[in-house]
């Protein structure tokens, strides 16, 4: 029996390294100059999928992402790490989707691509930090879910036994397949890209981005990344993209520093002494 594992991944702006020049003059974030990265915990999800395949060879690891054509970068990296198949879901009709509309498209794509025994996703993405898409895909697929997976004990053809971070407690949970799990960065360390796979796939892309005269060769060598559009999925447009999103962005403000009443003290004995006095004065009053 072939175990089908689908990994949901997202390309995100590298929010951990936002600097001053990433802000536009009007104070908003300039997405265009921000470097993008493979959402870190999605890499942990992919690593888990690949490690399952290391143990169970009759396993197929498929990585799916939804995003603009540039998002093939993370699919290419998935191939370098050892994914069997990758798919880019991209369609203007899907743009501007909130978590509900995103999970609708992703769950329909999973069904279209032959379903799954295990669906894995990162615990949350670093751009929105919502942690909602994973559970909402589970709901739409009618899958059982385990969120906040913090460790893995055993995964076999029938069941998973994993640790879940229950905030005040660690829960050891066993569940039958099929199941969707969201994976934390404590589960594993993602493997490096494999050099021979890098050589094989470094030019892989969606067909429309490959020069006409190279298409035939690209196809023969398996370097074409399949593109999924609504022509294939045939979803109700009212449930996709901005239209299908019940939440709307009303406005966006950039955060500026407040403060202004900063009192500085010297780093020598006298300065520190007066700092302590001022703290104590305040603190006694409180």
């Amino acid at each position, binding site marked *: 029996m072939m175990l089908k594992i689908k990994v949901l991944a997202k390309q995100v702006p590298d929010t951990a390294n936002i600097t001053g020049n990433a802000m536009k003059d009007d104070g908003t974030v300039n997405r265009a100059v921000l470097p993008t990265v493979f959402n870190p915990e999605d890499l942990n999800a992919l690593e888990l999928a690949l490690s399952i395949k290391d143990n169970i060879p009759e396993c197929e690891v498929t990585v799916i992402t939804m995003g603009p054509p540039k998002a093939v970068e993370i699919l290419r990296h998935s191939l370098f790490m050892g994914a069997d198949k990758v798919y880019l879901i991209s369609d203007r009709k899907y743009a501007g989707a909130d978590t509900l509309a995103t999970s609708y498209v992703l769950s329909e794509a999973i069904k279209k691509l032959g379903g799954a025994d295990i669906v894995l996703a990162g615990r949350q993405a670093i751009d929105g930090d919502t942690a909602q898409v994973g559970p909402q895909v589970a709901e739409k697929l009618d899958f059982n879910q385990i969120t906040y997976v913090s460790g893995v004990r055993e995964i076999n053809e029938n069941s998973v036994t994993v640790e879940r971070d229950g905030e*005040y407690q660690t829960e050891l949970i066993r569940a039958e397949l099929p199941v969707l799990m969201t994976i934390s960065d404590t589960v594993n360390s993602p493997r490096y890209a494999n050099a021979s796979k890098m050589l094989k796939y470094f030019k892989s892309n969606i067909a429309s981005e490959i020069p006409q005269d190279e298409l035939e060769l690209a196809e023969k060598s398996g370097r074409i990344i399949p593109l999924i559009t609504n022509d294939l999925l045939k979803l109700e447009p009212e449930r996709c993209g901005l239209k299908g999103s019940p939440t*709307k962005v009303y406005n*966006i403000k950039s955060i500026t520093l407040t403060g202004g009443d900063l009192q500085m003290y010297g780093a020598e004995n006298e300065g*520190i002494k007066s700092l302590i006095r001022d703290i104590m004065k305040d603190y006694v009053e409180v």
Partner: protein
Amino acid sequence: MKALVFIEKNNQTGKLRPVSLELAWKAHSLVKPFGGEVVGIFAGNELPQDNDELFSYGIDRVLYFKNPGLKDLQSTAMKHVLTGMIKKEEADIVLFGATHTGRDIAPLIASKLRTGLTADCTQLLIDDYKDKGNILFQIRPAFGGNILATIITPDNRPMMATVREGVMLLPEEAQKKPAKLEEFTMDFNNSWVKNEFLEIVPKVSKVNFDHANIIVAGGAGVGSKENFRLLEQLAFVLGGEVGASRAAVDFGFIEKDHQVGQTGSVVRPKLYIACGISGSIQHRAGMEESKKIIAINKDPNAPIFGVAHMGIVGDLNEIIPIMIKYLREE
């Protein structure tokens, strides 16, 4: 206008989580001007021991459902029960704590009801919107805390949001009201319980930010695990807790439990001493509401000085021992 609040207890202590009270009070202040009602919804095996507290913080009524199958709050079962409650109550607003439990269950319910869910809101208010009348404006940080987005759910009901613990404030004085409990009835299907809990191990956390008046926090600038002991000493002398930035945790100077910031705890102590913390926006999101902030940093241009009230530019390894010395003298 009717607001529902998901009532959550700490599974280890059996008592209400503070976020349930914080959301109850928030919901109260949101809907009372419109003559609305605030209903707590609880699903589990046993009501929280201190359930009556809810009625001191703005809850008008608690709708509850008890079943042994809900002992471990499994998401699929919780989804079915809570969705049933929300439908029965015809709620306009549903609030969840952005806890691991809340974030496990709320997205399932929003998906099932095909409505909007806004995560980790830091402000909620009700205002008039076009021809939609009064709706919920949900303000949340995004992009790693670099922007504040106001999100609305104009066309779908209920309007759902999650809020992290410690973000909404409780009133200075509670107003005691009589408890009003109502049992919710529905057929519980045991096949909803899909996960087998083999073992539950309580976490031993030494960190308790809930009631900490003083937090001494360290960042990458602390330099080493050994240097962090200085911060622990300072916290000990002041009777406070030790916090850390994500960088300090990533460098392995201290355990993740201590992390303050967007991916750690949100804290609001009377005094926050930031040592060797540059003050990334993610960190500031977790501490800038502190009453008094002291920044100690080698770099006079560190962003932390932008939110600090008192500052010293210099080497914390020299400054902190002197602070400890003077504090002992005081």
